[in-house]
């Protein structure tokens, strides 16, 4: 009998090639203590967290902590079952009502993660006669969701409304429904969808539109409702999917819609039916965080200012940056080996970012992906830039830096 794990030999080889020397490895990095939303102790060092998607820094918001504590004490550590089989807590329905109010939609369903929200909706909403037209750079949860379903799956070129238009036109004589799937902000490079153009195309072809606002909820729009709010097209987005594990600062996912029958999804989405529901403390903090997001204009201003400062700083070093100014800023490394050395170098001087490797990245890029937080101080941003400068010059990616110093003054 062959070894079951033989089929993963290539994964192991690749891993040994990149990380086999025993140095720090992004898959094993351990935060021994989390000090705040922007700092942790890693390998004995105070480290700036610049890769946690904690855009508004709400993981330690006093109001959210208080609500979580109270719910924990009152209702316990977990629900021990799914909503459908084992019952809904009042907190779950209250959170769904809060989502409806926050996003101005009639119906909301909460899922246990953002991944499950996409898996649930995309595998179920469309059937064998229908078509999904998805942006080629969509997240793995979208790919997995559509693969689990039965619709015909067609990819259109990333952020290319004209290509979408062409592909929808080819389907003009097909009777099935068409569902267009995009993201507000794409996770790897931080670029936004051209939503207004996509809405025009969607209307022209009488298609439905679903937007995953995982990285844009709380970040874009005057009240943090994401790209549809920022672009003034909320009524034209039929389904909004989101997560609680980024700006909302906890874990969970959701989908909202104005469609009158939307609640039927609860009875047909298998990942919803067969997953345990979120624990009361998580539900309570998520609900409070939605209020903080709605009233979080100042946080959004600080976040965007931090994004601008970091983007400007890294550009000035001469590093190649993958996208526009956004709370996700990705520096492109020339190859995977250099990417690993770069990532390790940053960690050694006290800065944690994400090392993103193909195939998870567009254009097979190797990325040092930073995500910013409203709570990052100017000093922390400056220290991140200094760290990039030091490591990049050591790796001969930019001219030697003038003022080498440790990134985190401790």
């Amino acid at each position, binding site marked *: 009998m062959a070894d079951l794990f033989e089929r993963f030999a290539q994964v192991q080889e690749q891993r040994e090639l990149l990380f086999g020397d025993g140095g720090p490895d992004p898959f094993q990095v351990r935060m021994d203590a989390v000090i705040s939303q922007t700092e942790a102790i890693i390998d004995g060092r105070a480290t700036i967290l610049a890769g946690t998607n904690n855009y508004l820094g709400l993981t330690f918001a006093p109001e959210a902590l208080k609500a979580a504590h109270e719910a924990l004490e009152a209702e316990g550590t977990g629900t021990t079952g799914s909503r459908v089989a084992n019952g809904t807590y009042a907190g779950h329905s209250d959170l769904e009502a809060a989502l409806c109010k926050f996003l101005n939609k009639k119906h909301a369903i909460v899922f246990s993660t953002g991944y499950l929200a996409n898996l649930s909706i995309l595998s179920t909403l469309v059937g064998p006669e229908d078509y999904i037209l998805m942006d080629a750079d969509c997240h793995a949860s979208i790919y997995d969701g559509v693969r689990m379903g039965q619709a*015909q799956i067609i990819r259109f070129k990333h952020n290319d409304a004209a290509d979408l238009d062409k592909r929808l036109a080819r389907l003009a004589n097909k009777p099935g429904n068409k569902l267009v799937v995009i993201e507000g902000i794409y996770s790897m490079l931080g670029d936004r969808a051209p939503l207004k153009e996509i809405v025009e195309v969607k209307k022209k072809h009488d298609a439905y539109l679903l937007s995953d606002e995982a990285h844009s909820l709380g970040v874009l729009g005057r009240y943090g409702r994401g790209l549809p709010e920022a672009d003034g097209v909320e009524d034209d987005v039929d389904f909004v999917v989101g997560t609680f594990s980024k700006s909302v600062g906890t874990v969970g996912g959701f989908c909202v819609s104005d469609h009158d029958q939307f609640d039927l999804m609860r009875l047909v989405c298998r990942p919803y039916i067969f997953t345990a529901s979120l624990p009361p403390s998580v539900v309570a903090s998520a609900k409070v965080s939605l209020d903080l997001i709605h009233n979080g204009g100042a946080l959004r201003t600080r976040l965007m200012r931090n994004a601008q400062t970091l983007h400007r700083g890294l550009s000035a070093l001469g590093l190649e940056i993958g996208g526009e100014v956004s709370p996700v800023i990705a520096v492109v490394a020339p190859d995977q080996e250099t990417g690993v050395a770069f990532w390790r170098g940053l960690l050694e001087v006290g800065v944690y970012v994400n090392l993103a490797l193909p*195939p998870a990245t567009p254009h097979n890029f190797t990325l040092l992906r930073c995500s910013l937080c409203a709570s990052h101080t100017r000093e922390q941003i400056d220290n991140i830039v200094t760290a990039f400068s030091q490591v990049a010059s050591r790796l001969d990616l930019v001219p030697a830096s003038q003022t080498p110093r440790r990134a985190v003054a401790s």
Partner: protein
Amino acid sequence: MPDKDGGDPSGDVLAAILGVLGSFNNAGVELSESTRFAEDLNFDSLIVMEFVAGVEDRLDISVPLNILPDIENVGQLATAIREIIKDEHG
């Protein structure tokens, strides 16, 4: 001999596939209808996606991702694409 050119008497579909495949043929394998994507060309899922996007551009069609798992070689892809073209042009 079965009519292998089916709805593609001029061989345009096959020519387009082979044309796009040329830029993905790092191993310098001799390309024909029986060339297998995984075994002969060492394609992984990511390269498959890029290659299919290239064929879509060349022929101005949409190839649903659903059909890809059943396709092993160039000839099978050509057959599937001829079906798509016939279907799109009714």
